[in-house]
């Protein structure tokens, strides 16, 4: 939009910085509170990572706490619980990627294939809803259905089968999490897929139908290739987030399965740092996670931008 307007008169370029600041005074002042927020709550905390190199004592503060070199890092790398948390994080992320990732795609294909507008809109309204429900509520609801005194164990009991409680089974923990994520966000995830489906050229379907392609062949040769840029893009972005599997969700249910199965990197940092006041080691682990995580996200983002050019990113920054 702004690019399309004729270039400003040359006089504008000759304004000094001071004059330009005066001209943009109101706009910049309006921006200020937001900028201040981002600096104070996103950039300043980065300085707090000095704690990772200190034997931090809250009553002494950053200034007076003793320096500890890299001993915080070496001691956490020597802690088996750290490696167990890393393993759990990767396991949970992997299960989510394999089990949850295809669900919105399948659901979107199904929704897209419904001819009746009314039915489709109704189903969409229903499946989008859980996205707006908080984790505490969702975990409580699952507790009620799958937990010890819940619907499923009772049903199994009535059928004469052993009463199985999924919420306390350490082996099932990644699956439980994936199930909850699917319940909460599968519908929401279809939004972007449905938009991509609408962008597929109708002519391709007609042409392939004339060529004698059946329903499934068209799905395979027209729909999926049409979706693939978006799918690849989302997959890469998900891989970037691999170290940050749902913190709230895990934290709420960690106690039920025990730390051996329920500890992820984020909860490790939380319990060591904030609950046990082991500030230095927790910050060290957090720093490692943040650096690897940021590198993954940045890498994934760059990669996705490159791949996604004719997918979601078409018309970007208009």
């Amino acid at each position, binding site marked *: 939009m702004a690019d399309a307007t004729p270039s400003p008169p040359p006089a504008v370029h000759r304004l000094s910085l001071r004059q330009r600041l005066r001209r943009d005074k109101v706009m910049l002042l*309006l921006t200020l509170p937001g900028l201040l927020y981002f600096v104070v709550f996103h950039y300043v*905390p980065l300085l707090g990572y000095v704690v990772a190199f200190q034997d931090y004592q809250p009553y002494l503060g950053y200034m007076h706490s003793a320096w500890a070199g890299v001993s915080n890092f070496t001691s956490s790398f020597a802690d088996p619980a750290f490696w167990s948390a890393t393993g759990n994080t990767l396991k949970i992320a992997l299960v989510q990627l394999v089990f949850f990732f295809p669900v919105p795609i399948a659901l979107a294909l199904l929704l897209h294939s419904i001819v009746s507008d009314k039915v489709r809109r109704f189903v969409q309204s229903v499946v989008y809803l859980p996205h707006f429900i908080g984790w505490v509520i969702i975990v409580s609801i699952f507790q009620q259905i799958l937990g010890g005194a819940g619907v499923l164990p009772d049903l199994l009991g009535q059928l004469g089968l052993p009463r199985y409680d999924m919420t306390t089974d350490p082996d099932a923990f990644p699956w439980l999490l994936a199930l909850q994520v699917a319940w909460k966000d599968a519908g929401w995830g279809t939004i972007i897929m449905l938009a991509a489906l609408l962008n597929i050229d109708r002519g391709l379907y007609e042409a392939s139908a004339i060529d004698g392609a059946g329903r499934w062949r068209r799905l395979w040769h027209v729909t999926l290739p049409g979706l693939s840029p978006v799918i690849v893009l989302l997959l890469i972005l998900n891989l970037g987030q691999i170290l940050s599997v749902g913190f709230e969700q895990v934290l709420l249910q960690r106690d039920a399965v025990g730390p051996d199965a329920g500890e992820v990197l984020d909860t490790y940092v939380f319990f060591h*740092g904030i609950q046990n006041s082991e500030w230095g080691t927790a910050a060290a682990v957090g720093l490692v996670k943040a650096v690897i995580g940021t590198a993954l996200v940045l890498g994934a983002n760059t990669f996705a931008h490159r791949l996604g050019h004719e997918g*979601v990113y078409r018309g970007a920054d208009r």
Partner: protein
Amino acid sequence: MEKPTRAGLIGKGIVLTLVVAAVAYPLLGVIGTSFASQSDIIRSPGLVLWPDHPTTEAYRTVLGGGIVTHALLISIGVTLVGTACSVLVTIGMAYGLSRRDVTGSRFILMTALFTMLFDPGIIPKFLTVKELGLYDTLAALVMPTLVSAFNLVVLRSFFMNLPEELYDAAKVDGAGDLRILIQVVLPLSKAVLAVISLFYAVTYWNAFFNAMLYLNDSENWPLAMVLRTFVLQGQSLEGASAGESLAPQQSVQMAVLVIAVVPILCVYPFLQRYFTKGVLTGAIKG
């Protein structure tokens, strides 16, 4: 194209019914259980879809002035104040960054957008909140999540897509930047502002993490923390609420859940019309 086959239709029908049931059953079950009496709960453990002897005893227990009532008021207050602050700050920033010729706007925009790619982490955020003296204050529920970069992007791109002529005409009439914002831009943005407000409101309403991290004093707990303690961890509400309860523990717990979900169910129909567009704008820009 040819008509769908009968088998295909039936198959789709079954799958869709299952999908809708998977979402609807738990929600309806929670509502049903909150009205259930002791005998209903013994008859069907877990969730009671349709109580035979409906009673509002659970709600009377919960809303009778005990800890849940208190938490409810806190949640409502934090949601209202938080949403108002967030929306105002987001409007200011989105508008200030909506024109490319503003000095330094590109740098400021990047400063904001870059935060989408990294997370400062739990410990440094906690220490920052503590250093700022926000620990154990209600401001800690709002300040650390004041602006969402996502909402900022959505609003900014909406402002940028308003016709250039509007700005020009207003300028010719002698209006300053602030006047243009208030008299021209905002009246045209009611719909998108409604969506963003609702997105913020839902976030504040559901917020659990900030409360758990920054509030030690249970006096300040919002509803989500009470839910965690009394529903998930199963601690008894009785001691905290006024008097003896006649309602079964389980329906009391479900009543708290219903109270936490109802506001979302109320705003959802309004939210729904807009969010597809909002999500797609955000996804394209992000």
